[in-house]
């Protein structure tokens, strides 16, 4: 479970700390531009690194991080990311600081470190990486290109290697702001690493069902709750390596087959929700950040949907969501709702737990009135 996120000098996040220790689910609310999605972007930088994209210019090509991202252009101070996460009862801390020396066009690594229970697994200053090996605390040193993050290139010793445990957890984090029109249900491979826009949803379904066939039952169970007339869904081979999803409905002895791509945007989100629940159950515990999970859903479904996510992550894994939707906001409480606020575009994001903020009126009325400021 993620306990702490710290970001400094990245876009609107300056000396920003989000403490979510012990919260299986939490909500971020705040005005447009307050910095909610920027938290997802910061996490996505780390997620993409753990998935193997570790060259700074490659991350820039994905619009994840670039020299433009220093807060107010302040490139004399490093961009810093820190996360602390509890995995298998051990506290992992990962630190990455990036700098842009004068006359450089590409970011480079200034500092990098992975610690478990306070003991370093590896540490790095600029190009020099120091590996701390085993109980004898031997050290090995090597050099890495300054523009490469070391995390994905250090050799793992085994599946019980803390490096493997951390990298796998981080690579499998789910960061979502889905665009249903990009979720076609077609796939040309398998993955357990969904993209933020949901565009590889077909590959994710293929990967999940191929490695955990029993996950189908979990997905099916959820879909039947929200779409009682669903009969089943198929992920059929349509070429040598290509698959396409079909959804079949049945009622009163009549049947209807629909290509996944032709489902409504909201129905695609039901599938996405169902797959998240199954993924968390079968290869979790997972961390999930979903930017506005209420998008595309009818008002009658929002509460059920958010509550399903919260319940599923309540005993295992962790989910962080953002929302502007009244129904979604009401499904969280004062101890798991964070308010984000910025005084202006020139000032950084502030964050406080709702239980620490005096709200005189009903929260929704206060949000509608724009009355909540930190």
């Amino acid at each position, binding site marked *: 479970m993620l306990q702490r996120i710290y970001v400094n000098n990245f876009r609107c996040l300056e000396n920003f700390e989000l403490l979510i220790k012990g919260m299986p689910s939490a909500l971020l609310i705040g005005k447009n531009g307050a910095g909610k999605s920027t938290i997802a972007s910061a996490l996505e930088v780390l997620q993409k690194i753990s998935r193997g994209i570790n060259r700074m210019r490659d991350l820039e090509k994905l619009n994840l991080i670039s020299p433009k991202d220093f807060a107010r252009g302040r490139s004399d101070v490093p961009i810093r990311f820190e996360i602390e996460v509890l995995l298998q009862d051990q506290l992992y801390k990962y630190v990455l600081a990036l700098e842009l020396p004068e006359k450089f066009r590409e970011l480079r690594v200034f500092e990098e470190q992975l610690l478990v229970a306070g003991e370093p697994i590896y540490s790095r200053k600029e190009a020099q990486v120091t590996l701390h090996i085993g109980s004898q605390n031997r050290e090995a040193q090597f050099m890495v290109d300054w523009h490469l993050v070391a995390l994905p290139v250090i050799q793992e010793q085994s599946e019980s290697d803390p490096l493997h445990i951390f990298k796998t957890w981080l690579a499998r984090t789910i960061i979502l702001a889905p665009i249903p029109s990009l979720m076609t249900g077609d796939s040309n491979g398998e993955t357990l690493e969904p993209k933020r826009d949901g565009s590889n949803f077909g590959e994710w379904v293929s990967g999940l069902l191929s490695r955990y066939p029993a996950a189908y039952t979990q997905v099916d169970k959820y879909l039947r*709750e929200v779409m*009682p007339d669903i009969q089943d869904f198929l992920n059929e081979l349509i070429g040598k390596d290509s698959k396409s999803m079909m959804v079949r409905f049945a009622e009163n002895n009549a049947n209807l087959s629909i290509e996944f791509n032709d489902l409504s945007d909201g129905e695609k989100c039901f599938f996405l929700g169902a797959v998240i629940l199954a993924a968390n159950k079968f290869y979790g515990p997972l961390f999930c950040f979903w930017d506005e999970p209420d998008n595309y859903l009818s008002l009658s479904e929002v509460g059920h949907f958010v509550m*399903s996510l919260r*319940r599923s992550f*309540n005993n295992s894994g962790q989910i962080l969501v953002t929302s502007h939707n009244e129904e979604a906001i*009401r499904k*969280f*409480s004062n101890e*798991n709702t964070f308010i984000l606020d910025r005084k202006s575009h020139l000032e950084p994001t502030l964050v406080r737990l709702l239980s620490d903020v005096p709200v005189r009126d*009903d929260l929704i009325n206060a949000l509608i009135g724009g009355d909540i400021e930190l």
Partner: protein
Amino acid sequence: MSNKYLPHIHVLAEDDANRQIANGFMLAPNLNNRAVKVLPLPGGWKKTVEEFTKEYASQMRQLPERRMVLLIDFDNDENRFNYVESHIPEDLKARVFVLGVLSEPENLRTDIKKTFEEIGEALAKDCSDNKNELWGHHLLKHNKRELDRMATSVKPFLFK
């Protein structure tokens, strides 16, 4: 899709504290998610009764499988339950339940040192496990008669 012709329950929580308790209740792992909905807050126990009689009672008559819980504060007022009950139409009484903290939820929270959500989770666990631990608290035990009615009318579909 929600099937309003199947047994379900709508919760009218008088204020934000009660809404958060309801949220915690709904986190119970074996709760039938589709069978419960928490409605927008009326804001005060009197408004809860007013909204119920003016708006929700007629809807209930159209939907025989709908039950409603009015989640109110009793504010240590001995007559409040009777007052609220007297405003529930006779033909709906079997499907409407009035629950709440004897004084107000803030007192319960202080007394047992749990958040509202944790209170809701503990109450749901009691219901699911057929126990009376938190429901037996001196600020909650007055709900017994209503809970007994709910055990036959609501519980069979509320938990999986």
